Each structure stands twice: as structure tokens, then as C-alpha cells.
């Protein structure tokens, strides 16, 4: 414990340096702006702003990108509460009661509860990250290629299982993403695969153009043709303070949302989305007045908002400690870290303690910055939403193309972004999730390399994956998930994932 506190002290000495503070502030501000814009969630936001960090050293760049990440998570709630448009998918549940509160004249209170809940959840979950990541990294030092392969496969299966809707469709998307990851030079033999003479495809498809295409461009393609934008409910500053009763009603949901969000965040999957849905369901189940949910229940804002912010820190645990991203956003964060010469994994904490602990401390600082920033600047964010979408989407499109081009200075990436945008638009229409595609793309080279290294270790015997206890257990859990899914299919009943899918479609709002 003392060692942890000492390390945290080292982290704060890094994070409180004026220049780091400045980048944490810029990251939070830009992240919130990005989160407020409909269609540009944290994933597209981090991807687009990655080139802006190229001139920075690794610590400043990562602190800024982390600020963008949790700033965007918070920013999404502003549009949910004031416009009933989720700035990003994790804010869907906040729309229900947040907008209802705004229509009753309690929009300011809803924003304040979301901000305070996010702050508390963000801060407490960082303690969890701080305590859990170092021992997990120590444990992961025992991992060889078979264990990593099992862990990566488990990650994909958990993501597919946790996704709302069909596991078969999610696994198909993961396989599609893994296939995209096969493009480029084979690491072991040097063969060009599916590059068709395009030299810049030798390094494979970049995560950034694929992510921006599937999430940012696909969203613009789907929404630009919509007829009338929704009304913005503008709160007054004096309405920002929640009443005593509203504080009392939000305390327990914030606590429960924090714990739930962190635990779900550690698991692979769309943690933010799932945590907010689970938190909403739990609060409704525990409430003495469940009929108020959907009509302005304070717990319906406090719980999900706390949960999705807590999940942000939870998702950092496997990424930092194991070097394994648990979802598309950590996958892009991982890619961003690698661009800056940092390889997250078990050795990161030992070899670059100032970076790891500086990052942890900057998350504390970032949460304070977010709290200070968000409430007074609500008016500014609301005014951004007043810009007509017919002007907003060309601007988002320009930023997307600029961000994608700037990563490698290559127009091939702009083409990839465009193709993936159209693919993402069609996939959305056909009710497929695109998150497994991004995760598959990132994990593909790691999975292939681990498989071939494992087989080299065992002289070609596949028994190595079950003979080694850690790998065996991890693959056993993956198999269990498939069986659980088969069981739900055979019963033909609506399990929690099917209900989640219905709720996401708005067919089940009660």
C-alpha cells in the first residue's frame, strides 16, 4: 500500500507539472466538445485528434488523449439531457430520464447530477485501476504465447457474448475484422497478403481510418439526410443546483453505478454501453417508484452516467496491465500509445513508472478539470448544438478526412475510411454491430503471431493450449460462453442481451 502511495506521489509530481495540466485541460475541453457533437463519439474523437499529438512527447500525448476519452464520455450526456440525442452510445439511457427532467425545467439539475456522478465514479474507479493494474501486470508476466492467444480469443468471445443481439452476428463481425487485419506483410514469412500492389497497405489497414469510417462516417451517412433537428432545452445557470431531495435520491445510484461500471469495464465488450444499461435496470428494479423511470427519475440519470464513466477507468486495466484492449476505444488508445513508442503490457509499469503513474494521476486531475469545466460551460456547449446540422456535418466530415489523412499523410487511408464508412452504414442498416470489427482488426496480428509462436514451442501440437493451466482455463471460459449462448438460443427466450438489443432500438423504453 505504501509503495502504491509512493508511486502515486511520483505520478502526481508528473501530472501536476503545468504543461501536463495544460494538456489534460485541453484534452478534457476538446473531448467534451467532441462528445457533445452528435456522431463523433470518443472513438472517432480520439482517432481524429491523434495527429494533433504527434508533436508531443509520450506522456503529454497520452494524458491529452485520455482527457479526450473521458471528456467525450461526459460530453455525450449534455446532448442526451438537453436534446434527447445521445452524443455517444453509452448515453442512450440518460436520454430517457435526463430529457424528461429537462422538459420539467430540471435540465440544469440533471446536468449537475451527471457531472458530480461522473466525477465521483471517475475518481473512485481510478483507485480500483491503481490497486488492480500492478498485481495483474505481475501475474501477466507468467503469460507466454499460448496464454496470450487464449486471452485474446476469450476477449473476442466475451465481446461477442456481451454485445446486444446475436452472438453469431457479432462473431461474424469479429471474423471480418480479423480478416481485415490479415491485409499486409505476413510477420513471419514476409509474404504480401491482399495488398494488390498498394505499397502503403504493406503495414496493414490502419485502425484510425477503419474506426473513423465505421463510426464517424457511417453516422454522418445515416443522419445527414434526416429532416428536422430536435429541439434544444437550454437551462439557466441558476437552475444548475439540484435540490436536497435530488441529491439524496442520486447518492445511492452513483455508488452502485460506480462499482458496476468498474467491474463491467474490466470485461471485454462495449463496457460503457452495457454498464449504463445494467445500471439503469438495477436502479429501476431497486426503486420504490419504478413508474417514474422514463418520466424524469433522478436515479435514471445518476446511475447510468456514473456507470459509464467508471467503466472508462475499468477498461484501462486490461489495456495497461496486459496490453490487451477490451473494446474498440481501448484498442484505439493502444494504437495511439504505440504511435508514441509506448507498448502497454506487463512491463510498462516496471519500465516506465513515471508514464504509468503520471497517467493514473492525470486521470484524477482530469476528473477535477471536467467537473470545473462542464457546469459553467454548459451554455457554450449548448450553443454548439444550435449550429444547424447542415453546417455541422460538413465540418465533422472535413475533420474526419483531415484526421485520417494526417496520421500517415496518405490518401489511401482516406479511401479506406470512405469504404469502411459505406460498409458501416450498410452494417447498421442490417443490424450488425461494428465494434467487433475494430477489435478484430487490432487483435489479428497478435492472435496470428501467438498461434504460430505457440505451435513453434510445442512442435506443432495443439495440446499446448489445454495443457498449460492458464491457457486451458481461459479457453474453457470462452467455450462456456458459446454454450451459454447456445442454451439461450435453444430456449428461444429473451435473455438479457436480447432485451438490451430491444431497449437500444427504443422498442422497450419502459
Amino acid at each position, binding site marked *: 500500500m505504501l509503495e502504491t502511495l509512493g508511486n502515486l506521489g511520483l505520478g502526481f509530481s508528473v501530472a501536476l507539472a503545468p504543461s501536463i495540466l495544460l494538456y489534460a485541460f485541453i484534452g478534457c475541453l476538446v473531448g467534451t466538445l467532441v462528445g457533445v457533437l452528435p456522431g463523433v463519439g470518443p472513438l472517432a474523437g480520439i482517432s481524429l485528434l491523434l495527429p494533433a499529438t504527434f508533436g508531443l512527447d509520450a506522456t503529454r500525448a497520452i494524458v491529452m488523449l485520455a482527457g479526450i476519452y473521458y471528456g467525450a464520455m461526459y460530453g455525450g450526456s449534455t446532448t442526451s439531457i438537453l436534446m434527447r440525442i445521445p452524443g455517444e452510445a453509452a448515453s442512450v439511457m440518460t436520454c430517457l430520464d435526463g430529457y424528461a427532467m429537462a422538459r420539467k425545467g430540471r435540465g440544469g439539475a440533471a446536468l449537475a447530477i451527471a457531472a458530480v456522478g461522473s466525477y465521483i465514479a471517475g475518481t473512485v474507479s481510478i483507485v480500483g485501476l491503481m490497486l488492480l493494474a500492478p498485481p495483474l501486470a505481475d501475474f501477466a508476466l507468467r503469460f507466454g504465447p499460448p496464454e496470450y492467444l487464449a486471452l485474446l480469443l476469450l476477449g473476442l468471445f466475451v465481446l461477442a457474448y456481451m454485445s446486444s443481439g446475436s452472438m453469431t452476428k457479432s462473431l461474424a463481425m469479429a471474423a471480418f475484422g480479423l480478416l481485415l487485419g490479415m491485409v499486409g506483410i505476413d510477420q513471419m514469412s514476409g509474404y504480401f497478403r491482399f495488398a494488390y500492389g498498394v505499397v502503403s497497405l504493406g503495414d496493414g489497414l490502419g485502425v484510425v481510418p477503419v474506426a473513423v469510417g465505421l463510426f464517424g462516417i457511417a453516422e454522418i451517412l445515416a443522419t445527414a439526410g*434526416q429532416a428536422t433537428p430536435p429541439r434544444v432545452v437550454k437551462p439557466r445557470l441558476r437552475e444548475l443546483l439540484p435540490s436536497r431531495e435530488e441529491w439524496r435520491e442520486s447518492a445511492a445510484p452513483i455508488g452502485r453505478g460506480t462499482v458496476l461500471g468498474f467491474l463491467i469495464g474490466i470485461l471485454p465488450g462495449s463496457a460503457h454501453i452495457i454498464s449504463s444499461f445494467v445500471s439503469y435496470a438495477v436502479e429501476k428494479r431497486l426503486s420504490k417508484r419504478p413508474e417514474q423511470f422514463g418520466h424524469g427519475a433522478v436515479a435514471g440519470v445518476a446511475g447510468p452516467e456514473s456507470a459509464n464513466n467508471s467503466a472508462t477507468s475499468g477498461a484501462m486495466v486490461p489495456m495497461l496491465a496486459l496490453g490487451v484492449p477490451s473494446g474498440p476505444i481501448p484498442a484505439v488508445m493502444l494504437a495511439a500509445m504505440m504511435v508514441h513508442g509506448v507498448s502497454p503490457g506487463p512491463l510498462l509499469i516496471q519500465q516506465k513508472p513515471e508514464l504509468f503513474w503520471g497517467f493514473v494521476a492525470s486521470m484524477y486531475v482530469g476528473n477535477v478539470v471536467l467537473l470545473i469545466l462542464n457546469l459553467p460551460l454548459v451554455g457554450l456547449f449548448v450553443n454548439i448544438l444550435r449550429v444547424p446540422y447542415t453546417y455541422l456535418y460538413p465540418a465533422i466530415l472535413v475533420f474526419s478526412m483531415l484526421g485520417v489523412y494526417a496520421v500517415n499523410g496518405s490518401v489511401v487511408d482516406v479511401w479506406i475510411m470512405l469504404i469502411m464508412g459505406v460498409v458501416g452504414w450498410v452494417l447498421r442498416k442490417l443490424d450488425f454491430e461494428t465494434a467487433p470489427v475494430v477489435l478484430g482488426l487490432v487483435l489479428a496480428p497478435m492472435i496470428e503471431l501467438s498461434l504460430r509462436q505457440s505451435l513453434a514451442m510445442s512442435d506443432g501440437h495443439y495440446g499446448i493450449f489445454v495443457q498449460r493451466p492458464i491457457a486451458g482455463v481461459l479457453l474453457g471460459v470462452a467455450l462456456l460462453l458459446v454454450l451459454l449462448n447456445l442454451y439461450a438460443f435453444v430456449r428461444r427466450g429473451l435473455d438479457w442481451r436480447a432485451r438490451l438489443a430491444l431497449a437500444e432500438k427504443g422498442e422497450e423504453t419502459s
Partner: protein
Amino acid sequence: MTTERVSGVALALLAAAVLEECWRLRLPLGSLATPGPAYMPAVLALALLAAGVLIAVLGPAAAPLAAVGWGEWRHTLAIAFTCAFVALALEHLGYRLTMTLACAFLLAIVERKPLVATLAFSVGLAAGTYFVFDTVLRVPLPRGPFGL
């Protein structure tokens, strides 16, 4: 025809195309014990083929393809065309000119906004983002004729 039938068949065709490409490009498959460069793509294509068939077979209960709204296709086409134009023109016309033209096309032609507002917004956005990224953040962006 349901959405799942169509998507299942499309995924299966994609998987078949990958398998065909592995064969056409003569990528060595290797063996189970020593996988070659075509091994993983082939395994993944077979997995995708199986998933596609499963989705298609289990898909009759899904929504009909006709029920999916495609009403925004004109906007989609225009935006896709704009992105393609940017990809083609960026390194020839330079960042500022390309983005100004792309933005102006979307605003004036697609959204039918007034010409003055279109020009002010397009030039302002292209010049502003160029200044922030190229000049301030030192991210090199392409220049076109006359240094534009």
C-alpha cells in the same frame, strides 16, 4: 427476403472470395503444425462462411429487407462522392482548395444554402483547420497550385 438472409449470403460470398484469393495469390497454406501465410486467412474465411450460412439459415424471422429505410441514399451518395473527390484531389489541389470545394459542394449543391454563407463557411473552415493543424500543430498538409 429478410435482412439476415441477405447479410448471411453476402458474408458467405465474401468468405468464398477470400478463399479464392488465397488460392489465386498462391499464398502457402502450410500445415496444421506449421501454418503458412494463408493459414489464418483461410481459417477465418471458413469461420466467416460458417457464420454467414448460420445467419442466412436462421434468418427468415428477421425484418424484411424492404422494411429497412434507405430514404437518405441521396445524401449518402453525395457524401461518399465528396470523400472520393477529396481522396483524388487532395495531393493535387492542396488541402485548402480541396476542402473548400468539398465543403462548398455539400452546402451549396446538396443542402442548397445561400452562396455567400457557403463560401464564408467553406473558406473559413478550410483555412482555419489548415492554420490549426499545419501552422500551429506542425502536422504537414499538402499544398496545391500557387502554394494554396
